[in-house]
């Protein structure tokens, strides 16, 4: 199976371990990733705040390339996914505004969880597990951009997505039920309003601990960054200790598949996951 792959800027930068773990897992599952040729910015953050036409236009270029490549497009970053989905919807309505090329919307846009949770792949995931993550209890945290609004994301269960829960169960993890799967972590206010990020992310930690989680698993670089890098600050502010490592879902898949390299990623985390993994015999 071959898919086009749109890493976006995050996966080339701060979320490099996300990128590496995706590539690693795909290798194991015989999924060939072809990085989208000459891709550019998705239009997230700055562009879509300032100029909607530009924001759609940037994404449109990527979509047209993907359409030419003729494969499904895997978009790991939730913000990129959201922008490309939005642009896709716009182009379907009036492509001519942004491009002279006809746009058919043939390339199916897929986010990481729904990509791996497909029947044909999840079977493979189950088969590839060498080291089930038994005893590791965590919560699946989807954040908002990959799910909502459903008229953009086409999510079938925007209030209660289950694809990551399925994946984590498939690799043997204990997935705790909680009500905060899609609550906001503070998102792109990470720079402007850190007080809000601390409040929102802090509430998520409280809920995760209450749910009996030992870690949080996400598939969004922004969520991962907020929850991981702000955790110490929040702990200090609330005089509490959460100690919740924040994983990318693909990191744990690679770990369960027994792939080399997982160890490399742990040291990039702010909340060091190694003590937890060690205690479960997983590191």
């Amino acid at each position, binding site marked *: 199976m071959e898919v086009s792959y749109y890493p976006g800027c995050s996966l080339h930068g701060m979320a490099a371990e996300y990128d590496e773990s995706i590539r690693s897992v795909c290798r194991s599952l015989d999924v060939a990733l072809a990085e989208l040729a000459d891709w550019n910015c998705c239009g997230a953050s700055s562009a879509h705040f300032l100029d909607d036409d530009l924001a759609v236009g940037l994404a449109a270029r990527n979509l047209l390339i993907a359409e030419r490549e003729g494969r499904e497009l895997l978009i790991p970053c939730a913000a990129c996914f959201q922008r490309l989905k939005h642009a896709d919807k716009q182009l379907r309505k009036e492509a001519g505004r942004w491009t002279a090329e006809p746009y058919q919307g043939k390339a199916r846009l897929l986010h990481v969880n729904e990509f791996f949770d497909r029947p044909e792949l999840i079977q493979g995931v189950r088969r590839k597990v060498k080291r089930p993550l038994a005893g590791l209890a965590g919560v699946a945290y989807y954040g908002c951009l990959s799910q909502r609004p459903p008229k953009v994301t086409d999510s079938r*269960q*925007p*209030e*209660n997505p289950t694809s990551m829960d399925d994946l984590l169960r498939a690799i043997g993890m204990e997935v*705790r*039920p*909680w*009500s*905060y799967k899609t609550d906001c972590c503070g998102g792109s206010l990470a720079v402007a309003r850190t007080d809000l990020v601390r409040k929102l992310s802090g509430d998520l930690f409280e*809920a995760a601990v*209450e*749910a*009996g989680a030992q870690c949080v698993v996400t598939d969004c670089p922004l969520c991962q960054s907020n929850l991981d890098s702000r955790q110490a600050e929040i702990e200090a502010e609330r005089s509490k200790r959460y100690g919740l490592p924040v994983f990318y879902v693909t990191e744990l898949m690679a770990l369960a598949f027994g792939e080399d390299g997982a160890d490399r990623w742990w040291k990039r985390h702010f909340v060091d996951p190694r003590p937890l993994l060690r205690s479960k015999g997983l590191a």
Partner: protein
Amino acid sequence: MVEANAQNSRDKVGAVMVVGAGIGGMQAALDLANAGFHVTLVEETTAIGGRMAQLDKTFPTNDCSMCTISPKLIEVDKHLNIDVVTNADVIGLEGEAGNFRVKVRKRPRFVNLEKCNACGDCLEKCPVALPSEFDQGMMARKAIFKRYPQAIPAAVAISKAGRAPCRAACPAAVHSQGYVALIRQRRYKEAAALVRRDLPLPSVCGRVCYHPCEDQCERGKLDQPVAICALKRFVGDWALQHDSQPEPFPLTHQEKVAVVGSGPAGLACANELIRRGYPVTVFEAAQKAGGMLRYGIPAYRLPDRVLDQDLDYLRKLGIRIQTGKPAASIADLKSQGFQAVFVSTGAPRGAPLGIPGEESEGVLDAIRFLRGVNSGAMARIEGSVAVIGGGNSAIDAARAAVRLGASQVKVVYRRSRAEMPAHDWEIEEAEAEGVGFEFLAAPIRIERQNGGVKRLVCLRMTLGEPDQSGRPKPVPVEGSDFDILVNLVIPAIGQSADLGGLGEVVQTTPRGWISSDAITLATNVPGVFAGGDVVTGPASVVDAFAAGKRAAESIDRYLRGVDLREGRDLASPTAPGPGAEDVKPQPRATPKTLGPARRRASFDEIVSSLTEEQAVAEAQRCLNCGICSECLQCVIACTAGAILHDMLPEEITVEVGAVLLAPGYEPFDPLLRGEYGYGRYKNVVTSLEFERILSASGPYQGHVRRPSDLAEPKRVAWIQCVGSRDPQLGNDYCSSVCCMYAVKEAIMAVDHVPGLEATIFYNDIRAYGKGFEAYYEGAKKNYGVRFKRGIISSVKERQQTRNLALAYVSESGQVAEEEFDLVVLSVGLRPSASTAQLAKTVGVELDRFGFCRTDALAPSRTSKEGIYVAGTFAAPMDIPETVMAASGAAATAAEALHEARGTRVREKTFPPERDVAGEEPRVGVFVCRCGTNIARVVGVSDVVDYARSLPYVAHVEENLYTCSTDTQRKIVETIQQYNLNRVVVASCTPRTHEPLFQETLREAGLNRHLFEMANIRDQCSWVHFSHPREATFKAKDLVRMAVARAATLRPFPDIRLEVDQRAIVLGAGVAGMTAALGLADQGFEVALVEREPEPGGIARQIRHTLQGADVQAFLADLVARVKEHPQVRLYTGATLEDFSGHVGKFKAKLRHNSRLLEVGGGAVIVATGGAAYNPTEYAYGQSAAILTQLELEQKLADPHFARGLKQVAMIQCVGSREEGHPWCSRVCCQEAIKNALAIKRANPAAGVFVLFRDIRTYGFDEIEYERAREAGVVFIRFEPEKKPEVTVDGGLRVRVIDDVLDRPVELRPDLLVLSAGIRPHPEAEAVSQALKVPLNADGFFLEAHMKLRPLDFGSEGIFLAGLAHAPKTIAESISQAKGAAARAATVLSKPFLDRSGVISEVDSTKCAACLTCVRLCPYDVPVITEEGVAFIEPASCQGCGVCAAACPRKAIVTRHYRDEQIAAKVDVLFGDAAFEAAGAAALQSGGET
């Protein structure tokens, strides 16, 4: 029973079909049937009653819903002119208004309604539990079930999804899901009996069957199939140990049957025949019975012991098996007296290889080889063995050879492994035991040495094109011969038949098999049937069983002279898989098996039985695809013989003149609002689920608990508008009822759990109905219910406590989070799923939500003539609105069909009553067993013996079901035979059954009042089930008391009242005129009395409805029709001077044009209207710029008026929802929005501000509210404590504290419009006194019952409609007026009324005119006459007996309840000498149970 002729009615059919039997459908059916139309009431589920039956209490009276509805259920059930058709769908409609033919499909109930007495004996036997629909899935019910205890028809039904895939896959149609279900309940004996019914040899089949059932098992799609075959073996083996001594089957037929051959086919045939009562003999040529089972299957798969035990059981059933003697010819058998023969001699001969050398010693075909092994003749093999062939026999032979010590065993097969016909698992086991395989090889000759075999010469093969069998054809490879050195060659390449002495007459195929018919198995010789291997060639054991059973059916038919073919193979469709998303994977049970080493060394059985624990756990893996498992336990339990598992759907065509649709609603699916976590969070329930939680018959027996931990919740939140007022989901209407039911549920919750904190999160509280506002205020004041305004956007579950956190904006404007123990989602109403199809079938249009499209001012009319609608299919509405709408729709249908009235009704005629005066009482006592309902607790025979000893008792009988039709017939005969003149039935409750037995008395020519019941079920066996001895004593007490009273009963006639078939309607507003026309169009003469000089009432001031219908045009038309109608006499400017009479005969004296005149009628409709409030507040009258809404509406008639406006303010609730006038006037919100929109349309720039408390645009009016906001109308909410302030000095100013901003807002409108409320009519009091009908505290007329009799007064024959009842819209007034007409028509449609003769009478010689009766009578019937004594009008008396009980002079007697009749009961309970002696004697004689 006479069916009236339907000829001369201008082709219109005097019958109506009502679709949907909820409260609306039932009301419509009763109104129509009571007005002379025949009704077919079609219901989708198995019982009538609808949603209302599911509710706990009803608002605003807190009456028990079930208690109020169940008398209606019984009334419908007993009505001679209502045919109830349940479990049925309308599937077709032809014809036109007045003459429709409706096709109805009755889904099979699998229970004969005529026979089922709802005793419930079957329920406890059923092994399949399902979520109960009635309990919203919160409780379990059985696959055989009654929808709810009070359900009508009082009969069970069975849920089936079709034939379970396992059973469908089984050639012998074994009831596999059934025995699996029984094993799950550890009911092995029943399970074994079920298997034995289908299969002669369960233990054998459990070992050797290739179980095609498991291939189709739905569980296999999830993880692995259920081990069905192993379970069958488990029960088979269990039964061999625990249940091996059956009684022989009684022989009920003379005709002897011979079965030739004792293999599986023959034995299956014999098993089936002996069960049907035929003497059957099996002839077997071999020394022992069993055929191929014994001689063809090695012992490691099937030990002889098992076969012997199974055979032994068959012999005990009465099957004769003669062994060691081949059957002679057919002629011989016939001469021995056998009248039918089944030939099942099998295929016991091995086929030859057809190669050189095959005749030598050392070549032995597999059949002969295995026979030798199994009989013990072949005990050891020296050297090596080659087996030729790839089927199961080849594998059997090879594996047997290994066990006999062969040095090497090789299977030679000419194709590859993939093509081998043997089962995979057999091949794998053989390999494990050391059997070798030579694929793609075919023997070409056998070479000998020393008389024995030396080598087998083979040729290599290659696979070519597919041959006829679809498998690739083996093609020899030239020159590829090779040798295998062997000592024994076993060909296993086919078998042929052995017909013995039977072959000469029976036709055979060219290959030597018998020819028999595929379906009947009949051969060319009449009476001779053939099946099994001898017909088909070698096949599986279960195929042979199937053939045997099929033959038995044919033989039975043949011997009874019935067509052999008719109706065969009409199997029900296969059930779809139930889906298994929520099922946890669980591996299949594996029995213990021997390892290969042990296996090679002996013929010990390889596979063991499952252990009991394994079996039970395995049985639990079954997904119950068929729902009903067809275990047939209900058939065994049902002594009435009512269960019919083979019932098929049935289509009927009904001729009707009109169709009335009342299919009801379904609750909104809360999964569509994922943010509330329904389905994920256990403690989030729907309002309908909460109704069941509150209900005493619900999951927690009426204790309020929460599902997660069954704890009593202390903090409960209701979230309103779930699925309502929701444009996002396309449900942008208001569901109208949720506010009130939530208030009711909150009150009830607090009532159940003192201290419970109830909080309702809402948008607007829409307490718009009669008495609702007071109820809402009462909830706050008396129950502390908190009302919080705001939409809840999400619910979070606390993982440790399962509590639920709700975030909302608090009074201080901050986001607050609060925890609750339980959250109730007030789900809205949606049209039922099935109604779209129904609408399509009958051809009516739906609106965009799927509700039925109706005309704004003809609310019961659909888009198709002759089809009417009522209840929640038209729009969301509550119970009283539904009842009114149903009566209204009934009236509309009756108008259309009035010429045909009475043409389709049935009347029952009875023989003349026998005069029993002067006869000694001769009491007949009928004691009911009620299946086992009474008999399992009460010693019924004992009660019967006892009853015989009682004085006056002339005859006593014991009945299995006293209420069954047969027994009724018998009672009639018994009454006549024994000349009985009193009857006592000791059974269930008079509530449901007294009318039935009274009718039986009438059929026997006895007065119906000579009847008495003793309730020995509900009040004895049910409540004292754990004390049978005492219960029997009590039953005797009850019977003794009943007999004592029966002896005192006197016959008396019932009352027949003449009816003046005209009507009087008071008030000629929209309601009065509509009611009058409704009756006139039904053919009744109407006197319409109006106080004002002109008809029209308040509607004269209204131009349009909110939806835009032209009211003035409508009104003008109405007035014209009233004036022109020949049947209507309109008296305007007339006042009511005097009123008298009773139902059937009222008289009203009118002053009209200064003359006095009298009008008469059998029924009266009060439609005297209401009045608009004339405000005194908000500076009304002080400025020309301050108007009421009605005044504004008049002004808006001038299009220039709105254009001149810059800003308009409106104030709501003026004179409503205030102390002294606490009701909501219901129409003011619509009125304000209507006028606001009119202004905005004419002048979009005008600012319109509506100052309100709650906007109460219920139902589809909500859409107009939304439209108003979109148009820019500004809505500002104020608290009643902070009312707007209006000043006129220095220009009009309105100040209000905006509730959201919490800041004052000042408006300077050029117009202030007051939404003034509706008040009772000033003359209501006078009308109330004249008619002696009550008003409520607010001054509106008070109906008989707020829920179910909203159009009736307590005084019979007087009805109510329009604003006289309460504030309402024009459309509602119209609907209600039509309804009142329907109610009145139930009185007017017949020239007389039959009433019970149980009434109170005054002995005027004793009366002291003390007025006690006058004061106490709840119906205001007694009056003091001119003679100065009390008089009770028989026509008005309801027979309640209050006056008789209270009369200090004992001057009043209530018939049938005379003092001596009541005393008789009490006397014998506490010691009548004669009865005591009789009782004592009976006690000594026993009383043990």
